[in-house]
Structure formats: structure tokens, C-alpha cells
């Protein structure tokens, strides 16, 4: 009997030893069988890109056989909290995507990012507007500006052709297109309002910029020369409200992924989206039928205020176990070689790395073609105004969602944001 009891009691302990040893063995095997091989973990909020990033990284490993990159994204809405926790705790990925301005700066403030000045020599050649999005006020860089994205409108060529429509240039034309489609019984937009980040990041920042005055107004807002209740911002909000009748039924319950599904399967004529979605639509049904146009301007002849958002910088963990290898990889990420690879594999991701590149995706080309005649800007409240809680980010997301739920008028939505930002004016 005693044996049996001992067996029961020791079962747990032995199980622990076996499992524990087992897992250690696995770890040991991973590092030993590869000899000097080093594995770097790269994290981002781009869960859609695993296969593509693996292909890109395979190129790096080809050139540097002793370094392997493992791409481990976390989903978009959870990414920031997860990154903050792991870096503050001194663990986490070796290389990571950082959001521009306030989001990334907060991570930098935890003291867990490698400062890049002088370490990556080509960094100074990057466009200063992009570098500024990942540097401190005194010019310390903590990330390579890696990805820029644009916001605009995707459309289904076949549906447009059915009604003899062409991509609109002005808002009035845009509204006519919407009305024609709706009268024809089409689902005009695939847009839903359940995931409110879309409403701010893509809809308001993308389509609203032409009405609030684009980059100039954004700067003035940051410099406290104007407030968010000023006519420009309210007008932009009113214009966004004009889209509401063209949203699908029960749009309040439609989340981001469902929107992609609706448009990707050809069940809506238009989708207000970001350039990063090219790949998703390609996978869902091909791009032959998908067209793109830039946010319509107010009246013919106006300069396009184009939201060319500084989306992702790449930072390096100060506590990485492989600083040398990580730095080698970082340098590669800042190289023209990577830039071309990324733009080939991930159409709609635009590199900031100086150099001349070819875009082989026609949609990406289309998106880029608008840049020339436009004033680039970034998302409305992304810089400085989202540094503290309640952040401009949170406020405007909620406000637009409320507006589309008919709980706030456009003016009230702006007042809600302005009121919440009172910490900025203290």
C-alpha cells in the first residue's frame, strides 16, 4: 500500500521533472543543433502577413545563414498592451513594429528600446518627416521608419461598369456615385462601425482631411492655434456623416473582418480602406475587379490632402540576447534591398528607405500616383494629442462611432473630442 501512495504522491513531482526536463531539452536542442544559429523574434500587429514576412525573412537568412527570423505577430487590437507589458518586463521580441508618434514614444519611455543614432548610418538619409515620427524631441531615433500607408477608397470595377460610373474626383461626384449605386439596389459601402478604430484611422483621417484642411490644420491643432471644435473639423465630420445612408443594413454590428469579407467577396461596391488591405483582397478573390481612388476633394481643382500615414517603425529591444545579430537584421531592414522586397511581397506597404523602387502591383501604383500632386499628412490626432489618457485616439474613435449611431451630431462629436482633450490645454 505504501508503494501505491508514494506512487501517487510522487506522480506529480516526476511528471514535473519529466515535462520540465522535456521542455528544457527542446529549448536546448533548438539552440544547440543549430550550432551558432541565432533565432530572432520579430513581432508586429500584422497577423495577416505571416506567410509573406516569412518569405521576406528567408531572403535575409539566405544571406546570413546563422540568423533565423521568427515572425510572431499579435492581433492589432491587443498588440500595444502586449508589447508594453513584455518590454517593460524585459522580455519580449528582439525586433518589433512600433506605432508612430505617441504610441511608439511611450514604449521608448519605458527605456527598453535601443537608440539607433550613429548605429545605423543610413538613418539620416531617410525623409525627416518620417524619422520624426519615431524620434524624441531632441532627435534621438528609436526606430527605422519602415512602413507608410495611404487611405482611400477601393471599388469594384464590375459594379461601377454596370452603372457606367467612373471613379469620382470631387465630393459631389462621390455622392452621385453613391446615390446611383444605392438606387440600383447595390450595397454601396462595405463599411461597418463596430470596430471604431477604422472610423478614425481610415474614414475620418483619410476622407476627412480634404475638408478640415489637411496637414496645415493638423499642425495648427497641435500648436493650439485652433481647436477641434473649429469649423474645419466639424465640416469634415459632417461630410463623413453624409456617408451613413450608404452603409449596409445593421452596419453597427459589422466588424472590421466582416467588412473585408463583404467587399472581398464582391458583395459591396466600395470599401473605404487602407493600402495594407491589397493583400487581403488579393487572397479573397483576386484584384482584377478591384480599383482604387484617392479621397475625393471638396471641389474640382483643390489640392488633395492625402493621408500618407507613418504606420510602422521597426525598433530593437535593448534587452535582446543577441544584440549583434539583431543589429545586423536592423541594418538589413533599413536597406534598399529589404524595401524592394517588402513592396513586392506586401503591396500597399510603402517604404521610406531612400532609393528608387519599382511597384509591381497596379493598385499600389495607383495609390502612389496620387502622391505627386498632393499634400501628405498623417492621422488627425496621432501626434502629441494621444500622449495621455483620454487620448485623442480613444476620444475620436468613440465620437465618430457615436455619430454614426445617431447619438451625437457632428458638432457634438467634435465637442466631445475637444472636451476630452482638456489635459492637452492645461
Amino acid at each position, binding site marked *: 500500500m505504501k508503494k501505491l501512495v508514494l506512487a501517487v504522491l510522487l506522480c506529480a513531482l516526476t*511528471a*514535473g521533472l519529466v515535462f520540465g526536463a522535456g*521542455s528544457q531539452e527542446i529549448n536546448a536542442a533548438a539552440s544547440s543543433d543549430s550550432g551558432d544559429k541565432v533565432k530572432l523574434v520579430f513581432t508586429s500587429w500584422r*497577423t*495577416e502577413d505571416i506567410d509573406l514576412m516569412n518569405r521576406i525573412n528567408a531572403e535575409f537568412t539566405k544571406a546570413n545563414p546563422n540568423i533565423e527570423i521568427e515572425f*510572431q505577430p499579435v*492581433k492589432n487590437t491587443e498588440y500595444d498592451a*502586449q508589447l508594453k507589458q513584455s518590454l517593460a*518586463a524585459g522580455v519580449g521580441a528582439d525586433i518589433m513594429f512600433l506605432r508612430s508618434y505617441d504610441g511608439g514614444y511611450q514604449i521608448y519611455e519605458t527605456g527598453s528600446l535601443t537608440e539607433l543614432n550613429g548605429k545605423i548610418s543610413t538613418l539620416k538619409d531617410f525623409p525627416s518627416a518620417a524619422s520624426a515620427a519615431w524620434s524624441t524631441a531632441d532627435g534621438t531615433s528609436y526606430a527605422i521608419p519602415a512602413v507608410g500607408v495611404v487611405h482611400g477608397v477601393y471599388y469594384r470595377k464590375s459594379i461601377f461598369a454596370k452603372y457606367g460610373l467612373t471613379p469620382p474626383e470631387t465630393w459631389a461626384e462621390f455622392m452621385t456615385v453613391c446615390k446611383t449605386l444605392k438606387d440600383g439596389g447595390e450595397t454601396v459601402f462595405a463599411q461597418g462601425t463596430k470596430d471604431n478604430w477604422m472610423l478614425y484611422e481610415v474614414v475620418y483621417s483619410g476622407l476627412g482631411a480634404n475638408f478640415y484642411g489637411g496637414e496645415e490644420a493638423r499642425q495648427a491643432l497641435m500648436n493650439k492655434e485652433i481647436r477641434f471644435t473649429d469649423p474645419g473639423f466639424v465640416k469634415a465630420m459632417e461630410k463623413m456623416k453624409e456617408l451613413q445612408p450608404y452603409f449596409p443594413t445593421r452596419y453597427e454590428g459589422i466588424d472590421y473582418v466582416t467588412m473585408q469579407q463583404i467587399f472581398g467577396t464582391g458583395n459591396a461596391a466600395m470599401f473605404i480602406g487602407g493600402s495594407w488591405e491589397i493583400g487581403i483582397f488579393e487572397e479573397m478573390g483576386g484584384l482584377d475587379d478591384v480599383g482604387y481612388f484617392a479621397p475625393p476633394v471638396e471641389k474640382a481643382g483643390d489640392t488633395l490632402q492625402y493621408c500618407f500615414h507613418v504606420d510602422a517603425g521597426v525598433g530593437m529591444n535593448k534587452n535582446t540576447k543577441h544584440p549583434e545579430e539583431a543589429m545586423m537584421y536592423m541594418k538589413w531592414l533599413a536597406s534598399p534591398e529589404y524595401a524592394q522586397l517588402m513592396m513586392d511581397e506586401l503591396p500597399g506597404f510603402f517604404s521610406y528607405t531612400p532609393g528608387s523602387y519599382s511597384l509591381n502591383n497596379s493598385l499600389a501604383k495607383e495609390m502612389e500616383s496620387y502622391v505627386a500632386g498632393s499634400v501628405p499628412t498623417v492621422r488627425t490626432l496621432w501626434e502629441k494629442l494621444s500622449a495621455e489618457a483620454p487620448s485623442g485616439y480613444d476620444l475620436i474613435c468613440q465620437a465618430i462611432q457615436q455619430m454614426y449611431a445617431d447619438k451625437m451630431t457632428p458638432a457634438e462629436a467634435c465637442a466631445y473630442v475637444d472636451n476630452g482633450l482638456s489635459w492637452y490645454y492645461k
Partner: protein
Amino acid sequence: MKKIKKLGIRGGLYLIMVLYALSILVPLYVMFMTSFKSNAEIFNNPFGLPEAFSMDAYVNLFVISNYGKYFMNSIMVTVLSLGVAVTISALAAYAVSKYSFRYNKAIYLYFVIGMIVPIKLGTIDIMITMLRLRIYDSLWALIIVYIAMAIPLSVFVLYDYIRMVPDELSSAARIDGCSEPGIFSRVIVPLIKPGLAAAGIISFIPNWNEFWFPLVLIKTKENYTIPLATGQLFGQFDTKLNLVFAVLSLASVPVIIIYLLLSNYFVKGLSAGAVKG
């Protein structure tokens, strides 16, 4: 007349039972069936059986997404934490239930009060402690927390089982010259085996499904448990609904099987607690 009324009550009873059973079975049916369907079929044929049972989604999860590893992690965390928790709880429960000393009642109460302590609220400090112990972001962090979480209920359940063992048996063993720890291992343990099983099984479900602590304590993908993988990797498959439902099915199948096999233990263990309360 009375018969008709009785028949009506019967009928109503069956109707309610059937509706209730459907409300449980239909969501589960939808979950399992959808995981075998193609994307087009999900939209065109939401209720029916799949045309062809496609295992693509599952192959995808295990081959591409490392699901096997997450399963092993979950099993290791669950088995180890329950094994240790039940063992040390049995020791403590024996000491406080069979010996009277100054604080035995107080210690018992101290343990049992843990059943209503919301441990989530100590997360910030648990995180910091795990960092100091250098086991943050490892399965050991989870194991320790789960041991602590399982102790109150295990002590509570085992206390009663041990107390029901007649004192005469231990006295007899004592007269035979058995040591006190010997009495525990030779006399008590064989008699409370159902109790040990009940204690382990009751804590199994919350343990296996626990999502909060992996979310804050585990950052490396290799160390994901099934619930964390379910929560965090969702974005990855969002546009492929069959994969999404396969993820959910995989997270549920083990608990459902274990429950169906051992449901009597659940019912006995839990309802005993309720009645005594």
C-alpha cells in the same frame, strides 16, 4: 379533466426541455459543423451538414500553426498544477482535520476563504513577483499561480473526505506502531481516493480554460496555452471562418470529453459543496 391538465403540464415540461436542450446543442453544432465547411458553404448553407467534411482547417492548425505545442503546454500546466495542488492540499487538510491544536480551525478557514478571493486583482504584483523569480513568460509562472488558485477548493473538498474517515482506523494503525505521516499515507489516502479525484477534476475546468493569467504572464508564442492561443491568434485567421471555428472546437473538445467521461465526479464534488455551504 385532471388527466388532461396533467398531460398539459407534461407536454409543457417536455417542450421547455427540448427548447433548452436545443439552445445548448445548436451553438455547439454550429461551431463543430462550420469548422468542416468551406467559406462559400458557410454563407450559403449555414445550418445544414457540410457537403464534404473537410479537415483542411485542422491540418492547417496543427501543421502550420503549432497547435500541438499549445496543447502540450496546456496539458503540462494543468497536470502539474493540479497534481501538486491536490497533493499539498491533502496534506494540509489532513493536518487540520484530524488533529486539534490551537489554530487548526483558523488555518482551515484561512484556506477556505480563498474560494471567494478574486485573485485577478493581485495581478500587478504577481507579474512583478514572477519577474523577480525570473519565471515571467514561462509555464512555471502559470503553474504556480494555478496551484495557488486550486488550493482553497481542494482543501475544502478534501477536508470533508478526510474527516469522514473513522478515527478508529487511525488509532488502530497508531497502536500497530505506525508513524503519523505513515497513517496518512497508509490509512487515509487509500480511503479518500474519490476525494482526491473529485478535487482534481473540479479544478480542472477553470484551470484548463483560464485565459487572464496567460494573457498577462506569457509573451512568447512557444509558451502559449490553448486559451491564449485561442484569444491571441484569432486575428490571424479572421477571414477564414472555418479556421476560426476549428480553433474554438479544438479548445472545447478536451473539456467536453473529460466532462462526459467523468461527469459524476463534477456533480458530486460541486453539489456536495453547495449543500453544505
